[in-house]
């Protein structure tokens, strides 16, 4: 039973990693850019929300305003950063997102200060006893939110014109341009959606640990998740997140005492290195279909 408890709490924190990783995958798929600024977006979104909230706006008002802020941010990023760098190498774009992460963090600090904010979403963090399994109500809520978000994204991607266009761009950018799909527009949409995912991730993380600057460091935890799951796969991000969450929690309990220290801080990276050696494309990395 103890083992199961450790496992479930690990899986639930893994879901949070998965949410952050999904933001990466969205942008990576549509533009081939590894967006280093995803962590700062998580921070910025959570800070915006929490400050609005502290100024007396209720959830139902603060949330859409924050979404709006993220959309405006996405449009600005496309105009000011991506468009001037169009047709450049992925490395150039990666470096640009690295710079972007500093700009966003600096902006967050200038606008909102560097205090730690408490975020109360009004969900109790009470342990619930389910057939001997201890699960917090907040964790159940968080996983429900994550599941709903992923389901909505999945439907958007598979059914709508926008979704088909997004996948078309991800598959072959040049061909997408040749049939009249507007890349700038697609990028604005993708960055907006990934801003929304960042907001949800930021709220769920922030409610747990307080909204503070260390939130942007989740970007470092998302890295092994992506390596394990595959950079271009949303299911991969989910499975990778769960795997990292579960294994690091288990390792902390069962290996931790042996090495007399916390294992969870580095275990995911060891796991990622193992994956790089054995299966570099990750669990769900897109296998290229090619027929000559």
């Amino acid at each position, binding site marked *: 039973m103890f083992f199961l408890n450790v496992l479930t709490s690990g899986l639930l924190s893994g879901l949070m990693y998965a949410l952050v990783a999904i933001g990466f995958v969205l942008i990576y798929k549509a533009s081939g850019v590894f967006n280093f600024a995803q962590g700062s977006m998580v921070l910025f979104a959570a800070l915006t929300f929490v400050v609005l909230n502290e100024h007396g706006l209720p959830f139902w008002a603060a949330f859409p305003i924050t979404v709006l802020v993220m959309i405006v941010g996405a449009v600005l990023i496309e105009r000011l950063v991506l468009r001037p760098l169009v047709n450049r190498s992925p490395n150039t774009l990666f470096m640009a997102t690295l710079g972007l992460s500093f700009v966003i963090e600096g902006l967050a600090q200038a606008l909102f200060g560097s205090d730690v904010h408490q975020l109360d979403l009004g969900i109790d963090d009470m342990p619930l006893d389910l057939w001997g399994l201890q699960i917090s109500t907040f964790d159940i809520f968080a996983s429900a939110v994550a599941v709903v978000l992923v389901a909505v994204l999945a439907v958007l991607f598979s059914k709508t014109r926008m979704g088909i266009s997004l996948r078309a761009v991800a*598959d072959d950018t040049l*061909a*997408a*341009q*040749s*049939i*009249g799909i507007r890349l700038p527009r697609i990028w604005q949409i993708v960055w907006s959606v990934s801003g929304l995912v960042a907001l949800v991730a930021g709220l769920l993380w922030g409610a747990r640990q307080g909204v503070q600057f260390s939130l942007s460091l989740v970007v470092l935890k998302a890295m092994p998740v992506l390596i394990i799951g595959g950079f271009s796969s949303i299911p991969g991000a989910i499975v990778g997140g769960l795997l990292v969450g579960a294994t690091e929690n288990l390792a902390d309990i069962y290996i931790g005492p042996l090495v007399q220290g916390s294992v969870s801080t580095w275990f995911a990276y060891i796991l990622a290195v193992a994956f790089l050696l054995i299966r570099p494309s990750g669990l769900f990395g897109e296998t290229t*279909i*090619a*027929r000559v």
Partner: protein
Amino acid sequence: MGDPARTLLASEQTLLHVDGVEAIYGDAILALRGVSFGVPKGAIVALLGANGAGKSTTLKAVSNLLGASRGRISKGTITWRGEVTGRLSPADLVRKGIVQVLEGRHCFPQLTVEENLLSGGFARRPGRRELRDDLDRIYALFPRLKLRRRGKAGLLSGGEQQMVAIGRALMSRPTLMLLDEPSMGLAPMIVEEIFEIIRRLNADDGVTFLLAEQNAHLVLRYAHHGVVLENGRVAASAPAADLLARDDVIDFYLGGSASSPASN
């Protein structure tokens, strides 16, 4: 931008004017050195020439897709129905009726055949019904695609992929279709089938074509007019029948006699 004299000169019958166009890649390689020709409404015009003569570059200059290969037009103008296209995006041009089928087909491999076709129709923002009708039109043209519509396009044969690429472009209801090496890597039977469809689209639906093709003997049987490119310049421009009759042109510029048609 809008030169009124040119607008007047552009006769209603000539849809596309390519006028003294120079194109460079990466600020170093001059791929086109002043190419000029026109595409009359309702015609099939063939761009001929060996590898590296500038056929693909010319097509991409017309569709404004040069930027994606880090190239640009450094001189000259391209005019589409009296409008200079220099500052329009590829998406704008698709809305104005120019669509390109890229060399090597470029289907979306992870998308189904049907999604591939649908994606070509989005540019016009058609209604759901209209999109459906267009799709049925493509399936009538390529019955084989209907059978495989739920399969991923990446798993199709080369010929079927070419059909998907052409069908996808047709979904935008183009006035002018640019085709880059439609015969490349395909079996002769399939090539004939695809050229027959081009002829049908031209005759029945009035679609104008600009085709880049290495296989001169093949394409001149279907084209009305041929433009021969050599080293980024126009070496010859004449009605297709005249070019076919002049074996010297074909031998000299297109690298092959009738007995050994250009490979690929």
